[in-house]
């Protein structure tokens, strides 16, 4: 069986320890986490949404979903990868320190990638780039030759296409 990457959305009660529960489940059972994002998404109902990208054989993915669903504060578990088309986005902050041609090239590429300059000094930029992980990764890769000094990434958030809610 071939391991493949799955993006899973989990709706949970926003309570202390919930993230530890989810992360502990993955480490305790030897599953991978490729990306993890979490934030409150419904203040009134006190709910958070966790987006996990994980890899495994179909049997392991099935287990991961069942194990997540079994946690008491978990409301819903959805495997976006198998449940139809979905969109994924990631945001990265990319700091580049350079001068002369390299500085100009960094700015030009940022424009191509529709990255925003959100901080500028005479010898540095911080770019904000948004897109799917491939795009973000490509942009970071290009900056490596142009004075890249720092990267911060949010990890993936994802949502199904169409009108259905989680």
């Amino acid at each position, binding site marked *: 069986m071939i391991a493949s990457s799955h993006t899973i959305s989990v709706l949970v009660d926003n309570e202390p*320890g919930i993230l530890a529960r989810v992360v502990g489940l993955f480490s*305790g059972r030897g599953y991978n986490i490729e990306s993890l994002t979490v934030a409150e998404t419904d203040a009134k109902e006190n709910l958070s949404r966790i987006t996990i990208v994980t890899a495994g054989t179909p*049997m392991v993915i099935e287990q991961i979903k*069942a194990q997540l669903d079994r946690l008491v504060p978990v409301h819903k578990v959805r495997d976006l990868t198998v449940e139809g088309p979905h969109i994924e986005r990631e945001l990265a902050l990319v700091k580049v320190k350079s001068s002369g041609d390299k500085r100009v090239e960094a700015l030009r590429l940022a424009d191509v990638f529709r990255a925003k300059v959100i901080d500028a000094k005479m010898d540095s930029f911080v770019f904000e780039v948004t897109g799917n992980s491939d795009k973000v990764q490509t942009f970071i890769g290009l900056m490596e030759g142009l004075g890249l000094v720092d990267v911060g990434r949010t990890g993936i958030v994802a949502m199904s296409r169409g009108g259905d809610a989680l």
Partner: protein
Amino acid sequence: MKPEESATTGADLLVKALIDEEVEVVFGYPGGAVLPIYDSLFKQNRLRHILVRHEQAAVHAAEGYARSTGKVGVVLVTSGPGATNAVTGLTDALMDSVPIVCLTGQVPTHLIGNDAFQEADTTGITRPCTKHNYLVKAVGDLARVVHEAFYVARSGRPGPVVIDLPKDVLMNKHDYVAPKKPVQHKSYRPQVKPDPKKVEEAIELIAGAKRPIFYAGGGIVNAGPKASKLLTQFVHMTGYPITNTLMGLGTFPASDKQFLGMLGMHGTYEANLAMYHCDVMINIGARFDDRITGKLTEFSPKSKKIHVDIDPSSINKNVRVDLAVVGDAGHVLEEMIRVWKARQPKVDHKALKAWWAEIDKWRERNCLAYKQDKETIKPQYALERLYHHIKDRDHYITTEVGQHQMWAAQFLKFEQPNRWMTSGGLGTMGYGFPSAMGVQIAHPDALVIDVAGEASIMMNIQELSTVAQYRLPVKIFILNNQYMGMVRQWQELLHGGRYSESYMESLPDFVKLAEAFGAVGLRCHEPDKLDDTIQQMIAIKKPVVVDVLVDKTENCFPMIPSGAAHYDMLLGPDDRAAKPVSEEGMVLV
């Protein structure tokens, strides 16, 4: 009304909540952080507190209480070491799906995180070994959390729940609001009733089987005594053979001719071979544990598998099944019986007859045979005699972990559920004695016997003090071979007979030890005096420790060595040279 006038302290409120949950007994040990609770317990007489001598024993006692009654077992321990000592018991309860609510004290909220005296990160430590846990930060949440904890512990696949209680929360005041019944949990709602279509499909598969077998586990015990009756009824309706897991013993009467005995690593020849050769396997409330399956690629390769389980995460975890029915075993069996009756399916009687003939041939191997001589007591013989003397009495059996446990599973017969308490998943030495205390508390007039080994019993021997205090007439039946027998057996079979640290040196004189705690000690080493000793043990209405000196080198057979397949069974001592254990098997436990 001002809150101060009507309100009660967190500790009083906790006690009220426990009484509303119909708790009768709490197993515990006091300490600084839980003093307010002990003060509240002192001022009432509805709840009975049993003072154990170690917190691990408190959890095992609560497990024994829970498994023998079907109720939730309740534990009360202090912060720090009280909580960490309870961890083994909690893990045991998680692995064996036993409903427990464990109340742990905690340092006051303003000290949490300061490395205060007797502080431990209890919710952090117990997160992976509980079904769920709570840290109560405000007294206003306390009653709700307690009621929710009981709901979570007993619903779905049962398990242990910890409630961590900071001392200031126990002392602050708040009104008590009785729980709404039934509890509507906002996210945890396990599926109890099965999908009727799946049941129909299952019946179709079951009815069409030529070489069927039922494989029933602890899920049926947890579904209540009615589920065992339904299982028995359904198995009788079909005429098919059935085997039980270690945890499932008693869910089908052992004396019934359709019963093949326990399966798995030390299961019977007929049960394991029937599992290997079957064409339809009906797993109800068991989880394809590695002690059951042996080598996964060789596990029942030709069968269609039906798996009934209340926990969807048990399905397709180790073994891929053809049909999954999620639901409570009792409800599923009820549906199965209903559909079977409605359809009146035509079973292939000819095929079934041939299948039984094959099984009977395997039975003829008499895989549990042993040779008793006049000199030394064989452990199997000791258990056969024990069973002979208790079978007509109202009795409950608990065990420790090791060879004696497997022999007890093989040689004692269980006709009803809730009569057999053993540590299956975690394999906790030291489980049996405190568990027996819990059983005896729940069933004061019954005969409660802990079948023990001399190594295991030493792990919670301090509880002799507890049985003395509460005059619990628990019987400890030690099969004393002066070795950690199962360790020694593996060293003999897998490690060239190098008995590294498995000899039990400097054992106490168990008779004197019993007497030191005000119990009665008996010893027996001659086969012809065994019956007398057992009868004496039963007759004494006090705690009794029986030291049965048994053959030191006896091994537990049949045995499927780790990593081997069901057909690769060792049936006796002469079998061992022929089948060396694979390298792959050596790394398994």
